[in-house]
């Protein structure tokens, strides 16, 4: 018994970087972007782990029902 691993959980995390010749706005934007990227990436990580654990629990229950 397998659960479909969501596409979101297979994407690499994002890392905002500064452009060439950055301005103050670029620095602030990169700071804000990285914060959002961390939270989004953690949500994807959590989803992947929850999917794995749920699949294992289903397999354990299926084996117990046999």
């Amino acid at each position: 018994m397998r659960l479909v691993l969501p596409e979101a959980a297979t994407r690499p995390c994002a890392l905002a970087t500064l452009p060439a010749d950055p301005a103050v706005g670029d620095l602030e934007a990169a700071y804000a972007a990285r914060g959002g990227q961390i939270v989004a990436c953690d949500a994807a990580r959590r989803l992947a782990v929850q999917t794995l654990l749920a699949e294992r629990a289903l397999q354990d229950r299926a084996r117990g029902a046999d």
Partner: protein
Amino acid sequence: MSPRVLMRAAAWIAGGVTALVLLSALLGGLGLRWDPLGFDRRRLERAEAGAALGRAEADARRLEAQGAADQMRRLDQFHQREATVGQVTAAALDQARSAADAHQPLETDRADRLRRHDGELCGIAPDLDGCAGAAGPAGSGDAAVRPGDPAR
């Protein structure tokens, strides 16, 4: 052999068969079974095995349905969080770019330090989205070049 003898023999045979049927019905009614080859037992075992298989398959379908529903709920939560993060981050980016000093260049030393650190991070994890080695799904190992975008 005369017809009379034949008729008498047929009558005896019919009487014997009738007696056997009546005796079998009587013993059956008393709960006695005569099944020396075990046909009834085997039929019962087959029926029980079929019922057990049916129950196991029903349990498996129920577990699958429950697992799929739980997964949908997790996906909904993820998409909600992803959307909320996108909204608040987009607002923060707008504010960053519209600040009074947004276009003031960074001091060269600071910009160099920050960009050097960006390069070090991308060197450690080149497949991160935003680094030059970013590719498709995590761990795919492809090396499609994707320019960095500080807004992402």
